[in-house]
């Protein structure tokens, strides 16, 4: 104990510097954990955490017995897995293609264009999408009309939305993600390509036999780390684009939007907390599993 205090005194200024961050994280993370108990209560804002009635597992039963549980869980996982696969695929492809190009000016221009969407908020993107998909004025329906094909009321048909959301995710994120892969490719030993040239390898052979296998570890590690997050939906994206358009819920409603509505619109914090706790618990398990696999096969890439 005296050793502990002596250490604090010896490095008092260093501990002082980290103190604000410690206090901040303590308040907004650790100190808020007791509120998880709300999930087991019929929480009443007026009565507070200590005086609200206990509900046992009723909030969980309410959620899991509803039709929503299956829908939001499935949509969350389905959309996230699709996002992960397609963003990784396109980012990887862009990186490999960029690596083949020597014209610096072209690379700069193309990268500038491809990265820009990642700086926009999903609200802005939702406006841009609206100019594409709007029923009356949207450019897609205008084109369909021009071609004599029947127009579609996009905002009232849930079926095309998984495809649309995946496309927009790729549109927004693939350019930025390709930067990381390009950095990994740049790190590949150049002599490999030189000796391949001497052996008369074609460009295609070099791309598929040298570049691709050598960045696969990076790809796998990043994918595994992201796999730990697939139980958390991108609320900002889904809610900005779908909003409260209930017609589209069957294919687009996710856990995070469900929790948001339960808390802020229905005004049932206990139900929201129960679903949130379900999400956090499964999310934590997924992080452990993903990290365990990563550590087992790619020691250096593990999170901890």
């Amino acid at each position, binding site marked *: 104990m005296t050793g502990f205090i002596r250490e604090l005194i010896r*490095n008092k*200024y*260093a501990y*002082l*510097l*980290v103190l604000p*961050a*410690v206090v901040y*994280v303590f*308040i*907004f*993370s*650790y100190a*808020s954990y*007791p*509120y*998880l108990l*709300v999930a087991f209560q019929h929480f009443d804002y007026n009565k507070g955490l200590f005086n609200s009635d206990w509900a046992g597992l009723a909030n969980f039963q309410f959620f899991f017995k509803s039709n929503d549980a299956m829908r939001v869980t499935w949509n969350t996982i389905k959309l996230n897995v699709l996002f992960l696969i397609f963003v990784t695929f396109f980012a990887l492809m*862009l990186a490999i*293609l960029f690596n083949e*190009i020597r014209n610096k000016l*072209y690379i700069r*221009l*193309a990268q*500038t*264009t491809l990265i*820009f969407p990642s*700086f*926009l*908020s999903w*609200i*802005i993107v939702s*406006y*841009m999408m*609206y*100019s*594409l998909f709007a029923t*009356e*004025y*949207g450019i897609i*329906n*205008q084109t369909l009309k021009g071609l004599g094909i029947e127009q579609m009321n996009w905002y009232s048909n849930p079926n095309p939305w998984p495809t649309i959301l995946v496309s927009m995710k790729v*549109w927004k994120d693939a350019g*930025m993600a390709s*930067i990381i892969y390009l*950095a990994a490719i740049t790190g590949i030993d150049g002599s490999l390509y030189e000796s391949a040239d001497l052996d008369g390898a074609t*460009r*295609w052979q070099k791309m598929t036999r040298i570049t691709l296998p050598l960045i696969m570890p990076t790809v796998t590690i990043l994918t595994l780390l992201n796999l730990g997050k697939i139980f958390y939906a991108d609320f*900002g994206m889904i809610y*900005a684009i779908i*909003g409260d358009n209930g017609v589209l819920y069957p294919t687009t409603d996710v856990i995070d939007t469900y*929790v948001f509505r339960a*808390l802020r619109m229905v005004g049932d*914090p206990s139900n929201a*907390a129960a679903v949130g706790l379900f999400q*956090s618990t499964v999310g*934590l398990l997924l*992080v452990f599993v993903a990290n365990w696999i990563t550590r087992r096969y790619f020691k250096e*890439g593990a*999170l901890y």
Partner: protein
Amino acid sequence: MTTIGRRFSPGVIGIYLLLTIFALACLLPMVMTLVVSFSDENSIVNKGYSLFPDAFSLDGYRAIFANSEIIFKGYGISLFITAVGTVLALFLTAIGAYTLANPQVKYRNHLALFFFITTLFNAGIVPWYLMVKKLGLLDNILALIIPSLLFSAFNMFLIRNFMESLPDALRESAYIDGANDLTIAFRIYMPLSLPALATISLFYAIGYWNDWWNAIMLVDNKDLYPLQYILFQLRSNIQMLEMLPKGAGNEYTMPAESVKMATVIITIGPIALLYPYLQRYFVKGLVVGSVKG
């Protein structure tokens, strides 16, 4: 094969073609938004959104400048929370990182674990919301700055990694000269970590400028809406207007479509202006962050 032959082989042309198609696909929605914001409203009504409107007009922008007090207020709020939030967040993150990077500090790894656990287990929005409510931050401009975004453990680890790569001799010789950690952190480590700090401050600035999560969760007072959240509300309202039957006494004369897109353009404005810097630092920061983890 000659150099010229190699340069223009079908393979290379195919690669250029593919990349160009991608880049154009990225560009199209943005160009579209820009063109619509300058389009004449009648042209939109007749032709729909188009890259080649019949007539251009500044009506959309005029309408914003003439009667959209709420948008200007939102602009002010957004600028304020971005400026104050970024400075506070950077300060909090950077000084904490210095301690974690200092091998003299015996408990630095315990501290790092303390921060790291919160990135593994996220209690969800309900405990967070109830905590913010308990602190009395609801419907307060501070709610747009403090409860989230202000601090990210990942960003702190990134700065720590950068500071750890600086030579230890710097700190040790400063200790010998009688400097304490406060002096060393602010006079030596911060200036030397400028590239990392610039990257992180851009992460924070973009985060604050694009944020509407804090607003939708914590603020009901219209006077405190940041620009992004106003856009969110505006879209819902205009969509509602669109659902009403047209003609029956509710023909709105406001150039609704071009106003919408003009608002989007002025919201993107600051980001587009800063973009050359953003791109350079983001790319560097991303690469550093991903390689060193």
